């Protein structure tokens, strides 16, 4: 009934076929790692001839893999917390003040989204090599705070736009202090927006590879960097287990974000 090109049957069949081929092309590669991950540890096999957990055992017993995963989780958690701590107050100030130059500052906070990551990677590499921050957890966390800022900004600014300013005005008129208003009136309304931003930031940091590849070596190596060199040089089947774990984690985070966004849309 709602054909965009009239109700031609052949046109419909052609687009449907093309579309399904495309869905498969987008879907299959992300899902095929799951059966491979339960296969033979000797080689990448599909379909796997026997089902084992050997690849997971290899992953969790090899400190090079396991350690880089712990490192990645650590970096992602610290990055997310610090990024929230810096971005939420800044977003609040952008939305609720009339400071000249706000537009410029907002542009600055969004910029990491628009600059090619390789450029940022090189710049940080040159800068950190003279600051002694190369291959340190502090260095990679700093870089990731910068990279995740725009995602938290977007989410929190839109949360502030949808929150009820009248409540803040009323609280101010009733004599509540700035601090009280922020913690008792503003923050509770922003919970969902902050959670969405935090999940985005966490996933972004967990998946980030280009900058981490420039900034980390053997000491501070994150999981994506380890995966990158493994895909490049050895293509071990353990990658299937790592990929499955990461995909499951990403999907859980995605579901969390979508559920939270639904909730905020429904309540506003």
């Amino acid at each position: 009934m709602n054909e965009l090109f009239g109700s031609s049957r052949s046109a419909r069949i052609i687009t449907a076929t093309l579309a399904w081929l495309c869905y498969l092309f987008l879907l299959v590669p992300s899902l095929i790692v799951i059966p491979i991950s339960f296969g033979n540890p000797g080689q990448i096999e599909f379909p796997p001839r026997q089902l084992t957990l050997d690849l997971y055992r290899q992953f969790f017993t090899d400190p090079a893999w396991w350690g880089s995963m712990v490192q990645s989780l650590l970096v992602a958690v610290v990055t997310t917390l610090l990024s929230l701590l810096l971005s939420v107050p800044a977003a609040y100030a952008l939305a609720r003040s009339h400071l000249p130059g706000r537009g410029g500052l907002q542009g600055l906070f969004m910029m990491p989204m628009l600059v090619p990551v390789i450029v940022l990677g090189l710049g940080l590499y040159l800068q950190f090599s003279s600051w002694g921050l190369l291959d340190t957890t502090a260095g990679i966390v700093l870089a990731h705070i910068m990279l995740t800022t725009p995602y938290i900004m977007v989410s929190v600014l839109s949360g502030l736009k949808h929150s009820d300013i009248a409540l803040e005005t009323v609280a101010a008129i009733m004599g509540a202090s700035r601090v009280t208003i922020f913690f008792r009136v503003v923050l509770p309304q922003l919970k969902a927006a902050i959670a969405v931003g935090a999940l985005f930031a966490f996933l972004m940091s967990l998946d980030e590879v280009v900058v981490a590849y420039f900034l980390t070596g053997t000491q501070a190596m994150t999981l994506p960097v380890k995966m990158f060199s493994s895909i490049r040089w050895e293509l071990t089947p353990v990658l299937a287990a790592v990929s499955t774990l990461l995909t499951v984690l990403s999907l859980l985070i995605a579901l969390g974000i979508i559920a939270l966004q639904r909730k905020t849309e429904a309540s506003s």
Partner: protein
Amino acid sequence: MASSTSASDLGPGTALLLLAPLTVLMAAILLYPLGVIVWTSVNNGGFTLSAYADLAQSTLFLKVLRNTFEIAIGGTLMSLVIGYPVAMHLAAQPPTRRTAYLIMVMLPFWTSILVKSFALVAVFGNQGLVNQLLGFLSGGAIKLPMMFNRVGVILGMLNFLLPFMILSILGSLLSIDRRLILAAETMGAGPLRIFWRITLPLSMPGMIAGILINVTLSIGMYITPALLGGRQDMMVANLVDFYTRQTLDWTAASASAVVLLVLSGLLVALLGRVRGAAGLSGAGA
């Protein structure tokens, strides 16, 4: 209310205090390194543009630049040609089914680029699924080299770019007034005529935005050519890495990075003119 002194407003002092930490950090970790790159590219004992002159004469750089445009533009055009019918298919579905299909389109969007790269090698590599199937069907006669060459890069690009293109075109298609098509049909227009005269022109904004987003995302691509391409398929981002780590020529690396920065800056500005750049996320994985 138009007053600038509403009770919920922060004074300039408080606002500055809240903005200062992030501003300082971004100045130190974002602006300063960009400055370092520009400085490194023009400083060789004194101000000089020799690094750029060298690049302009370097066969390697020119080849890489050509690769970059070929892959970015070729990948984008293929993504447009494949993405358009997919967007039409999605637009024609009832809302609940559309949501279900959209999940399939969005899945790669959420998966790590490394997982996708590894999976593409597992599917399209020499020992991969497709070649196993071809070998089985042809009795071992046919083997298609689809990885670690240009085909591999394009497959990886498409897997990464298609969701952006599809979503962008879908937005335009969904905003088309269906009564126009109904009217055209009633007046006797055939399906092709309706497509050329109504659907295609009205979806132009989505197509243009999709094209610009795709080119912007692919021009700075590093992972896909590094993992799925061969030595011949180096793009500018890979060259930056090559100069930085292989030849330790930081001046050439910086100059190449500045070229990439300018190119993508122009594209982003263009995109910003077409529509707000807010929809652009995940740039250049």
